[in-house]
């Protein structure tokens, strides 16, 4: 019964689509017979250099044709044309020739003949490129109108963005006179109306992105806030910091490892030396290493990134120096494993099971491996302290570790452990920034409820 129903339904679907196709063809025929009156052209057509960019882009604006959405309502789309000299076509021919030579090179290997040919082609190409501005100046001689884009009816602007790469096929040179026009096009593409030609217009790169002024203001404000509080802290002002259990646990954990005579495993994560979370982790490592040196406990720091390894070696070495035990420092305390995520995990898992560290500390950037590491450590019975700014991994650390520093707490931790007023001062600045965020958001909320969106726009940063 059901099967029949499906078959009938499918049949009907087919029939329906045939019928639809038929009515469509009928329509098409009828339009060919009807003649459409030419639409009104767009008005107020303007072209200008796209602001706040690196150049190679022109923005076009216009007012809709009177027959777009009104009047005869016959405009379907707008086609944008740019006048290009014939010289542009010789560029295309040269590019094609160069591609052929490249393909030959892949087939035949690097032969001298091909290299020579390529060099002469490139020379010619560059010579043509140099001629482009003067060729454009010759408008309207020795060129033609080329469609560069189209937009559906109802659109009032278009950005003609080209590539900055000279060998790209849509290379758009800077400081060259361009001429544009926009055609309002109807169903019958031969029935159309062209706008007045706008030109000459040139594009160029800007030296300052005015769309990013709010960011500049905010960055300057934040910098001043940080410097102010750091200076204040330097001058001896007492700053309160709330306790962070994860940080206090570090000291206990080192003590525990010493008592048990087992090592401490410090994992810096998969971040590069450039990740700020890794930099925060270095500060924590420095503190841990100093204490480890004092207690003469063993420290293991297997690393994933060789640059991180290099920095971590410096940090640990200095910590041993600070603790007055430079001779106890071993170069292989911090060692490289491999730069492959899961191979690294396999090796660290092995260390956890064989060396049985009393404490595992995970600080930095972690991805999917967070759970494997933390669970293996938990199964091996180690005390575990973690901290990361990777939001997706925090839940796994919370479940499998004894203490977890959540997001910003990791950055705060480096200041805590350093216990230097300078670092603490910046915590105060962060808090003020947060308070400012809350206040601004409240103001914004009130304003947006009254429909004033200008305030919100301040936070939307131009690309």
């Amino acid at each position, binding site marked *: 019964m059901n099967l029949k129903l499906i078959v009938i339904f499918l049949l009907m679907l087919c029939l329906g689509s045939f019928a639809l196709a038929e009515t469509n063809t009928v329509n098409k025929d009828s339009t060919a017979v009807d003649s459409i009156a030419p639409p009104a052209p767009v008005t107020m057509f303007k072209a200008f250099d796209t602001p706040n960019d690196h150049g190679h882009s022109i923005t076009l604006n216009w007012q809709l044709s009177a027959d777009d959405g009104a009047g005869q309502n016959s405009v379907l789309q707008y086609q944008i044309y740019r006048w290009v000299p014939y010289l542009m076509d010789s560029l295309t021919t040269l590019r094609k020739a160069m591609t052929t030579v490249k393909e030959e090179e892949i087939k035949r290997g690097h032969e001298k003949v091909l290299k020579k040919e390529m060099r002469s082609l490139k020379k010619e190409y560059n010579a043509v490129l140099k001629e482009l501005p003067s060729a454009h100046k010759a408008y309207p001689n020795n060129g033609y109108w080329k469609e560069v884009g189209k937009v559906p009816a109802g659109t009032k602007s278009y950005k003609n963005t080209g590539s900055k790469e000279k060998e790209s096929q849509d290379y758009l040179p800077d400081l060259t006179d361009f001429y544009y026009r926009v055609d309002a096009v109807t169903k019958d593409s031969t029935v159309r109306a062209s706008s007045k030609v706008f030109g000459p217009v040139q594009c160029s790169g800007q030296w300052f992105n005015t769309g990013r002024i709010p*960011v500049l203001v*905010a960055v300057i404000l934040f910098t001043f806030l940080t410097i102010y509080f750091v200076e204040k802290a330097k001058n001896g002002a007492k700053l309160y910091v*709330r306790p962070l259990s994860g940080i206090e646990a570090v000291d206990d954990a080192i003590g525990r490892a010493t008592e048990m005579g087992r090592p401490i495993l410090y994992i810096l994560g998969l971040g590069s030396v*450039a*990740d700020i979370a890794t930099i925060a982790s270095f500060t924590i490592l420095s503190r841990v290493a100093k204490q480890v040196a004092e207690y003469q406990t063993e420290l293991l720091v297997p690393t994933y990134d060789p640059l991180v390894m290099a920095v971590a070696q410096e940090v640990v070495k200095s910590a041993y120096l600070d603790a007055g035990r430079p001779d106890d420092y071993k170069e292989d305390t911090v060692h490289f494993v*491999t730069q492959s995520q899961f191979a690294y995990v396999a090796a660290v898992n092995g260390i956890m099971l064989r060396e049985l560290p009393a404490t595992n500390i995970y600080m930095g950037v972690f991805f999917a491996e967070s759970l494997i590491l933390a669970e293996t450590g938990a199964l091996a019975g180690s005390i575990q302290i973690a901290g990361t700014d990777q939001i*997706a991994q925090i839940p796994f650390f919370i479940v499998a570790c004894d203490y977890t520093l959540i997001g910003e707490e990791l950055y705060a931790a480096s200041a805590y452990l350093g216990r230097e007023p300078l670092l603490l001062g910046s915590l105060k600045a962060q808090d003020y920034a947060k308070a400012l*965020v809350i206040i601004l*958001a409240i103001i914004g909320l009130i304003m*947006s409820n009254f429909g004033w969106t200008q305030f919100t726009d301040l936070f939307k940063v131009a690309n």
Partner: protein
Amino acid sequence: MGFWGQFGVWLAALLTIGIISFLYKDNFLYKACEAIFVGISAGYWFIVYYWDNLYKKFYLQVTNHDLTSWERIIPWVGFILGVMMLSRLFEKIGWLSRWPLAFIVGATAGLYMMIYFVSNAMAQVASTIIPVFIGDWATIIANFFIVAGTFCGLVYFFFSKEHKGAFGLASRVGIWFLMITFGASFGYTVMSRMSLMIGRLDFLFGTWLGMIK
């Protein structure tokens, strides 16, 4: 599948079992897999980075005569900085390696600072600013929770103020919100992780043993 193809599948199966056996306990097969894995992957990435970084970004640049002489000279700075990294191998001049490190840390710190400032701070503030009291009552309640949750969460991250009184309450509500988030994201991941294991079992029982067709 030829002999070498079959051999590859058997090898892959053996390695798969070796790694899974770790769940039972550490054993010689796992240790062998681990050693193979570490060695081969280290070599693999060294080769890939050699061709991608040193060959493409340096060798091809400095030998490309289409570029301006400036563009051919500048990669040498990177090369010299790289060689300075190697100074670590010698105790006396090891401090030279701090130059390239300083360069990387400085350049990327500035980069990350701007990226995070815009995408994490400003963009998030912009999306928090929503008209709360518009729409049906369910939307209004949801909007209210979103805004209140965001504020309380931020209060939790205050470090220089004692969390007591109304401030403490807000901070406590904040951490509750955080915990709900972590729970939800944990629950969300469970299923996708299960499918990974199914994929491996499919290889063992399907591709290798041919039990699943």
